[in-house]
């Protein structure tokens, strides 16, 4: 008897069974089916819902009679099968049997008595026996026998015992016919019910029902795609629930050889089955992921699993596929994966940070593989990485031999501990060798050293990625890729720069100069002054970002670095003119102003003057948010460079301070050659008339500096830095503020005289020309004619109708006449007779 026929039998036999019928009625309604069909994405939720409902239902039944039933059953069993060694492991049998042995009370209150009780119980014994044999032989045979022992508490499939064969055949023939009548819908319903039942059983008692996993997996190979979807979702729910909080280790030969107690055997079997099914499930998911129909479901399952069990076996394959999908073209999948990885980074306690390194390494490999042509999201997740700030301190305290910033040497020699430490550590680890596995399982806290190591490696991998991206952007700055991802030809550059800025304090000093050179090149600086390379592929925002990162890196390393950042100032000076409000991000510009100019110490006077002039001009041409950011920077520069305050006054010739360049060149590329010192900040007088009160206020504030001497500063209007000021005035924020009340108007003149205000006189003149008399006459007459025509028409119509109906009346008149005649003649006849 082939597997398929078995399956068929099982399928056909299922309906008469009371518990299944119950579930058909109760758990699965038509609406549910529709819902699942229409919303495959939400089916996961559905699966959970189902589970709960089913759980509740089952528990209720169990509460009712489980104890009693079990007692009865055990008693009877003892009597009947005293000889048999009933293994306590067969919990499913124990739990299942009473259903057959006793009448079943369905939810709607019917008591169903099972026929053929005797035969069944015989089977039961058979089944139990065979199963115990299986176990002895090893679980490898399990798969063969699995369909037989299939889960179903009813044990119908066990009808195949030799004595029953003819009966069963007859049975199957009859049922085969019935089967044909079963529509696919019913099949689907049934399978769904089966899934729910299996899932319930597993959740209720995973230890005893662990074999059901296999059944579920088989269901996942169904022809019906909907069933497969439901199957993998049910499995997801089951796995999320039953996966233990430790990693299951492969047993060694030695361990296998040792005789163990029943309990241990049972646990081993359980773990073995779990692991095997989990592996099969993952394989299934990964294969399904390639089919478009299952893509989202599979990705969702993978992400959910990664989120729930990052510590468990097969994490590597999970991670690999999730990372791969980080740059998927599907927005939903990408978001899911990003969220999963982020939660991985956030909850390091779950997996002790191991998964973090793996993930970052995988991302690095991925970036390398795809030559940096990925979706920005795949790098953006790294921004949620967390590194301990005091990591370095511990290090230095622990080991005084290391230089202060040794923590940054991670990239090359990952923590070269001294000999002493090494020995000590080895000894410790040896001593702990035996208990280590247990310890790991029990406690998730890592000793700082281990943690540090992990973080270092993570950092190394992260910066490797970042540098790769930078190098790539630099080498191919002329290469215009038609990328499908947003962000032009360098989709990864923006998140990479952001990451570099964020982790700038962790960058190795050795890389610093290289990095700065790299950024310099990227920011568009060329050795040949003047021309901006026309095909520089980087946008203004990206180039500004490069300047910001360079300064951040420089500053977070205590500014000890002897790097010449002058070129970045030149870049910024030019980029200010390139800024376009809609194309570029104003916030980046404001941040650049803040980082480069506002936070800086005293500037070179010529440079400061050049920036002051340019910022003032800039403020005249752009919106109020940009203007205020520029003005705040300008004010700051004026405060720090008191000599530049001369620009506020119209001092002919620029006085003694005039530079070599006498004539101001507003379009100068080099701040030193602009001759800005010789100019006057006339812009401020116009900015005082700015419609935005905060801008005009700031302009007046700056202008008031002219009257103060060098040590005095004007009243501080606000302490906001350029970036904050920009954000405060940006349109988005302004719109989110509550609307100001529009004041009611009070006017001097209440009413206007008759003069016209909005209409031009020539328009009014046109109004007075009237139509010529002839035209008027003609039009009026035709108007009248039409009206007359209409009324005439109406009149005639009524007349015609009237006449016609009069003629029709004639017929009636005739009829009446005839009748009267008839009656008369009738009467006459009557009288005659």
């Amino acid at each position, binding site marked *: 008897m082939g597997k398929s026929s078995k399956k068929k039998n099982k399928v056909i036999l299922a309906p008469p069974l009371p518990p299944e019928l119950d579930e058909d009625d109760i758990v699965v309604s038509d609406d549910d089916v529709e819902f699942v069909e229409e919303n495959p994405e939400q089916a996961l939720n559905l699966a959970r819902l189902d589970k709960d409902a089913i759980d509740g239902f089952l528990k209720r039944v169990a509460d009712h009679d489980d104890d009693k039933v079990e007692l009865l059953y055990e008693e009877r069993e003892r009597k009947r099968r005293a000889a048999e060694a009933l293994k306590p492991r067969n919990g499913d049998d124990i739990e299942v049997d009473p259903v057959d042995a006793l009448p079943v009370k369905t939810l709607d209150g019917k008591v169903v008595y099972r026929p053929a009780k005797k035969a069944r119980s015989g089977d039961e014994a058979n089944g139990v026996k065979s199963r115990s044999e299986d176990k002895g032989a090893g679980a490898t045979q399990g798969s063969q026998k699995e369909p037989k022992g299939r889960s179903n508490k009813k044990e119908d499939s066990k009808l195949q015992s030799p004595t029953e064969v003819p009966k069963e055949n007859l049975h199957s023939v009859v049922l085969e016919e019935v089967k044909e009548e079963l529509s696919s819908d019913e099949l689907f319903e049934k399978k769904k019910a089966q899934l729910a039942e299996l899932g319930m059983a597993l959740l209720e008692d995973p230890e005893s029902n662990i074999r059901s996993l296999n059944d579920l997996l088989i269901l996942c190979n169904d022809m019906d795609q909907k069933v497969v979807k439901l199957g993998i979702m049910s499995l997801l729910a089951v796995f999320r629930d039953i996966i233990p909080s430790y990693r299951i280790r492969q047993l060694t030969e030695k361990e296998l050889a040792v005789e163990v107690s029943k309990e241990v055997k049972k646990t081993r079997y359980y773990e073995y089955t779990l692991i095997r099914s989990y592996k099969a499930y993952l394989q299934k998911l990964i294969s399904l992921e390639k089919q478009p129909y299952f893509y989202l479901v599979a990705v969702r399952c993978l992400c959910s699993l990664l989120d729930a069990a990052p510590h468990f076996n097969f994490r590597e394959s999970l991670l690999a596929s999730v990372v791969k999908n980080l740059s998927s073209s599907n927005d939903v999948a990408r978001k899911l994966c990003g969220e999963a990885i982020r939660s991985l980074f956030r909850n390091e306690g779950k997996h002790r940070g191991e998964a973090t390194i793996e993930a970052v390494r995988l991302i690095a490999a991925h970036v390398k593989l795809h030559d940096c042509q990925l979706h920005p999201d795949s790098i953006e997740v790294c921004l949620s990485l967390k590194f301990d700030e005091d990591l370095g301190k511990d290090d230095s305290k622990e080991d005084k031999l290391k230089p202060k910033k040794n923590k940054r040497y991670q990239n090359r020699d990952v923590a070269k501990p001294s000999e002493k430490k090494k020995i000590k550590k080895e000894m410790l680890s040896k001593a702990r060798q035996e208990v280590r596995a247990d310890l790991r399982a029990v406690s998730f806290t890592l000793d700082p050293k281990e943690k540090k190591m992990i973080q270092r490696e993570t950092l190394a991998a992260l910066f490797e990625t970042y540098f790769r991206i930078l190098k790539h952007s630099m080498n191919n700055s002329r290469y215009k890729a038609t990328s499908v991802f947003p962000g032009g030809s360098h989709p990864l550059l923006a998140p990479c720069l952001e990451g570099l800025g964020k982790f700038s304090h962790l960058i190795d000093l050795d890389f610093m100069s290289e990095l700065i050179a790299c950024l310099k090149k990227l920011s568009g600086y060329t050795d040949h002054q003047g021309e901006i390379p026309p095909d520089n592929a980087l946008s203004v925002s990206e180039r500004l970002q490069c300047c910001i990162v360079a300064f951040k890196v420089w500053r977070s390393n205590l500014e000890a670095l002897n790097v010449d950042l002058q070129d970045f100032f030149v870049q910024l000076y030019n980029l200010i003119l390139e800024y376009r409000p809609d194309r570029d991000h104003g916030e980046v510009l404001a941040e650049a102003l803040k980082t480069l100019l506002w936070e800086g110490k005293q500037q070179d006077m010529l440079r400061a003057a050049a920036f002051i002039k340019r910022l003032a001009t800039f403020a005249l041409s752009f919106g109020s948010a940009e203007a205020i950011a520029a003005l705040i920077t300008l004010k700051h520069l004026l405060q720090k460079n008191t000599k530049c305050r001369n620009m506020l006054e119209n001092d002919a010739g620029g006085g003694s301070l005039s530079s070599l360049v006498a004539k101001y060149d507003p379009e100068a590329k080099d701040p030193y050659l602009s001759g800005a010192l010789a100019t006057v900040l006339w812009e401020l007088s116009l900015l005082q008339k700015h419609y935005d009160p905060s801008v005009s206020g700031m302009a007046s504030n700056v202008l008031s500096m002219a009257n103060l001497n060098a040590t005095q500063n004007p009243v501080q209007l606000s302490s906001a830095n350029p970036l904050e000021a920009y954000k405060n005035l940006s349109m988005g924020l302004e719109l989110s503020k509550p609307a100001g009340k529009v004041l009611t108007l009070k006017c001097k003149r209440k*009413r206007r005289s008759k003069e016209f205000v909005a209409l031009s006189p020539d328009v009014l003149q046109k109004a007075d020309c009237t139509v010529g008399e002839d035209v008027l006459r003609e039009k009026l007459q*035709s108007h*009248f004619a039409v009206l007359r025509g209409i009324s005439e028409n109406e009149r005639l119509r009524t007349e015609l109708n009237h006449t016609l109906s009069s003629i029709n009346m004639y017929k009636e008149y005739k009829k009446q006449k005839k009748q009267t005649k008839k009656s008369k003649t009738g009467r006459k006849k009557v009288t005659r007779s």
Partner: protein
Amino acid sequence: MAKKLGKKARKFANKHLQGGAKRSRKLRSQFNRRTRKDGKGREDGGRLDGDGDEEMRRSDPTVNTHDDVATLANSLEFPEDENEFDGDLSDSDGYLSEDPECPYYSDSEDGNVLKDSIVQDGLDGQNNDMNLAVKKQKKKLKKLLDKDPEFANFLGKWESELVSHESDEDSDEQDEMDSGDDGVDAGDKNPPSDKILTSKTISEWCQLVSKDPKAPALRNLLNAFRDACRFGLHSSSLSTQRLQSTEVFYQIITFILSEADNIFRSLLDIPDDDKGKLMNLRNGQKWQDVEPLIKSYLRNCLDLLSQLTDNQILTNVLTRLRASAVYFSAYPSTSRRLLKILIHFWASGDQSLSLTSFLMIREVVSLLPDCLDLCLTKGYNTYLSSSKLVDNRNIKNIDLFMNCLVELYSLDVQKSGERAATSVGQLSAILRQVSKSKEKEDLLKIDNWQYINCINLWVRFICVNYKDCHNVHSLLSSVAQIIRGVAYLLPGMRYLPLRLKLAQMLNELLNCNQMFFPVPSLIFGCLEFREIFQKEQTEKTNIHFSSLLKVPRNLLKSRDFQEQCILSAIEVLSAHFAQWSYHVAFPEVATIPLILLKRLHEQTTIDSLHRPLKRLIDQVSENRDFVQRKREVVSFSPNDLSSVESFLEDEKMSGNASFTQYYESVSKNRQSRGRKFV
């Protein structure tokens, strides 16, 4: 007989129940008929004659307290108060008792009056056919009657039954429909004459009246006018039969319209345009005498207005009627009726009708300030509904309508200022809501003509009234914020036409208050060089930015779009530069735009743009050098505000600097271009 009974009952109702409601029902039905015949503005008509309740529900923001955006969008309109009735003239329909001495002449010369119709339209042919059919059937009937005389009796019985039945049934109906019939009630003593009016009679009367306004023939003429105005309204009425020739109709209408005003003035002894005097007269004996005549005249004019469909005649009638606007002020609720009709014309008519009706409205409103609210509300709502769609054809009408509306709102700035504040508040509430969600369908709430036109209306209003009313400033800043918000929420190339429009509005606003706003920052997008997708485009697609908010995607890279873009940008930029061309900081204002313009001039591949770009660059540079030269010799500093203000004051006054002249030529070009497109 039964019919007469019904009439009496109706007469009773009319006299004792002051049928205001009935009257208004009647009016509505007339109006509906008119609009249906009109074929256009069905919705407008519906709004005007007002299914009041529905209208209230839809447009009253206080009813819908839950502020979903849909109601917000609707609530751009002002709530309208519809429950008003027309009480002044409803006690009579304007029939005047006639002086029996007045002669009637029979028209011997044109006896074939029936045949003189000028227009041979479809109806005439049909009427002739029907006439023949009637004759034929009558002959048949007669034959039958001849054959069987008893049938005549039977028929008579049936007819009388039918009549009584009918009158029972539709007496209600007639209540609604009637108007001509109730003329009878005034005529218990003097039944309206049913004598046929002939051309000769009319001209005789006209002569009599023009010789002496007090002549009794005036009453006859006014009655004839009444019949003429109602002609065709109710075919069953007697008045229809009195008028049989087109000539007569024309004579009556033109004479009354052109002379009535003079006649009444001479009767009342008031000179032209003296409102105060008329009001003083209202209790005098003279007024008492003339009042019924005026009443009749005005009422019938209203009827005429709701009857006519031709724009030209309407324009003419309105122009004549404008002189008599002062009389309407004596009857406020009739004026309301008139205003509603006028607003309808204002919105739906062609340019001249629209303008004439607006002038009439303005006239009436300035005489009757109470009606101003009605007009402001209705006018605003009508403006909104008519500006939903803008295309090349109606853009001028909308502009005219807007200007008229601004004119109306400027009549009483105090009153309209509140309305403006409310409306601007609504606009900004919508904007805020949209900026919160930024959903695509929400964006449509600001990305539509109604919204933009509404902003434009208030911009114009503020500009006109800024000088007289400095408190408009708070309104101005919120309008400016709305404009910036719209530009911020709708970025991208496709919205460039909208952006240019917003920039123009800003320029307009800033010109009146002399504040600084970096207008160029809005349109820098236009000045970016972009590659043209189709280099060889054979057919020239016409893009008119004035009737577009969003550029269709397929035109985005076309040559025409680029060209239009840059030309419009040049206009906006030059307006901005012109505003500050005499300011001491002009060189700095021009710096960044000039860099962009130069770059664009070098890069652009569209030959037709080289010249205008070059011209602008040259003009700006010249002006920059001019200001620079001038400021090199001054000694004041930027913080010396008064000196900054007076810088180049003289040149500004004389206004003959080259840049000013350049700007004038640019704006002239623009106007002529606009005219060409329309």
